[in-house]
């Protein structure tokens, strides 16, 4: 009995972040939009989880909600909990959250060209973050910032630190963002499409850099992306989102070898492959993403699903574990 509780505790302490039944709503002129609807997942320390889905499926909002950065008004977290090592972030006050932002949890954004403050030198911005979260003198913070810039692969960091964001290329700016995000040794990094705005060669370099640093710092990462290729390369676990809810949550190898949800299947099917016959048409998922203001009452994917049943239209399938796998899927008839 005692042994069991100890074991259970050991298991739960592995879990770094636990999101449960998160609901985020935005008030618009047309009505209330539920951008995130009952999202649950857990992340273990040091693990990389990919959050995959189309634009507008709620990936970024989920990321912002973890840091308490939902613009309010119009948005708000309606219900659910976000626990970081047992501490519910949704219950924290703004000053308490500020202590966590940038130190325990960091976030990097999609658009490196605009994500840095254009009127301050990058050094000044990095030192600002370092000194806010750590007891450092100006000189120590300056040295730490140079060290971080070197770590993310910026040549001549001592020179570059005196430059303004506009003097750097997009890839360099994203590296500066990464350096800033990692400077206080966060336990969790939320990377919101960190490479989408970069050109392809830079993309690979930046992703590689992130992964290298992630293992070096031993932090967990949520990689928000619509690029399944990046997920396959970098993540252990993948969460597929659609219209604000999770459709499938599976280990990456499982997901690619054996996609369970028809939507996941469709997503994987619509990736162009080099080996494929050039004459064959690239399969697409038919139909359109439903309007978030008028979501169907049943499964959100029902209208586009080729296996749709009566039941799908009546009641939303809940995310449940498939027997004998570590995959969770929200479908009445998984593959």
């Amino acid at each position, binding site marked *: 009995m005692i042994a069991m509780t100890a074991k259970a505790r050991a298991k739960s302490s592995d879990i770094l972040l636990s999101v449960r039944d998160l609901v985020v709503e935005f008030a618009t002129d047309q009505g209330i939009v539920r951008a995130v609807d009952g999202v649950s997942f857990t992340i273990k320390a040091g693990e990389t989880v990919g959050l995959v889905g189309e634009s507008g499926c709620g990936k970024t909002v989920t990321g912002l909600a973890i840091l308490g950065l939902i613009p309010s008004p119009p948005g708000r977290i309606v219900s659910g909990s976000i626990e970081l090592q047992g501490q519910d972030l949704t219950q924290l006050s703004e000053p308490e959250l500020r202590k966590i932002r940038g130190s325990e949890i960091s976030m990097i954004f999609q658009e490196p060209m605009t*994500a840095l403050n254009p009127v301050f030198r990058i050094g000044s911005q990095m030192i600002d973050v370092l000194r806010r979260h750590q007891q450092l003198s100006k000189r120590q913070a300056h040295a730490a910032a140079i060290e971080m810039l070197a770590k993310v692969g910026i040549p001549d960091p001592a020179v570059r630190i005196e430059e303004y964001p506009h003097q750097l290329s997009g890839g360099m700016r994203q590296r500066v963002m990464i350096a800033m995000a990692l400077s206080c040794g966060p336990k969790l990094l939320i990377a919101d499409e960190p490479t989408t705005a970069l050109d392809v060669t830079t993309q690979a370099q930046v992703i590689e850099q992130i992964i290298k640093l992630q293992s070096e710092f031993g932090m967990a990462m949520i990689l928000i992306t619509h690029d399944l290729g990046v997920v396959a390369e970098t993540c252990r676990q993948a969460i597929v989102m659609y219209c604000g809810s999770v459709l499938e949550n599976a280990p990456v190898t499982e997901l690619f070898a054996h996609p369970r949800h028809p939507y996941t299947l469709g997503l994987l099917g619509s990736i162009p492959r080099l080996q494929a016959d050039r004459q064959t048409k690239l399969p697409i998922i038919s139909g359109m993403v439903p309007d978030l203001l008028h979501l169907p009452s049943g499964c959100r994917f029902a209208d586009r699903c080729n296996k749709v049943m009566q039941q799908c239209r009546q009641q939303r399938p809940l995310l449940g574990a498939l027997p004998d796998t570590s995959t969770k899927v929200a479908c009445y008839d998984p593959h």
Partner: protein
Amino acid sequence: MEILQYSLRKLIAGIPLVLGVTLISFLLIVYFGPDKTYDLLGKNPTAEEIAEVRSQLGYDRPFVPRYLEYLHEVITFDFGNSESTDEKVSTILSRTIPVSIALALPGFILGNVLGVMFALLAAYFRGRWIDKFIMGFAAIGMSISFLIAIIGFQILLSSSDGLDLFPVRGWDTSTPLQYLRYVTVPTLATVFIALGYNTRFYRAVIVEEMTRDHVRTAKAFGTPPARLFYRNILKNSMIPIVTRIVFSIPFIVISGSLLLESYFGIPGIGKVTYDAIITGDQPVLKAVVALTAILFVVAQLLTDICYRAVDPRVSLK
């Protein structure tokens, strides 16, 4: 050094503007302006008398020499003597411009500083009652005519029907206290009106800046609100704010206080300009117009240099 070179280039580039303004003002005020012949001659002049006076006044000379003569006046800044008081125009200007500045400066500074402060407040509490309250007042300030504001404040503060605290009109700067007594009511009226426009404008600028990506980044790194406002929002909103402030300088020096000065009987440049328009005092008008044009060129130069100071992306090349 870079700034000096840049200033010189900009000033040279400003010459066509000054030329254009002087040409138009020459056409309107001098060439097609009031004909003084009959004022000077009195009743029943003979044709010879008319021709003589016209040639004395230079009316019979062709366009180009007359315009060049005007340009010469602009360059040497010697516009001759006023036609109504026979005082040297440059003496009039050097006497009245300081008065105008002393009158307009407090309102100008308060109007902008308070405008930015209220705009920050309104932007921070966007959509809440404090925002609606401030913007409501701004709308009132914008909707009321300047003259009504002047009369309103006068009745409230200067008349025996109101508090009767300040003199109704006039100007005295002999002691700081006297200056304060005379400048208060005009300043209040100016600030009341300016705040309406300024707050609205600055709020729009600040709200736009608040939604920028780098503001979100700063929030994601735990920047507290005060620092966020100063480092991310205010500093980045400086370009439109500086533009607005610097470009209103020519107005406060020259024409902005026209209504204020004529209404309060303050002997500033605005009053002189007003009187010159009424009496058709060409030398004074020519000087004021030329001065305004030159000030605009200088203000433009100043804004560009200020841009460099607030935004490292701006190059003076």
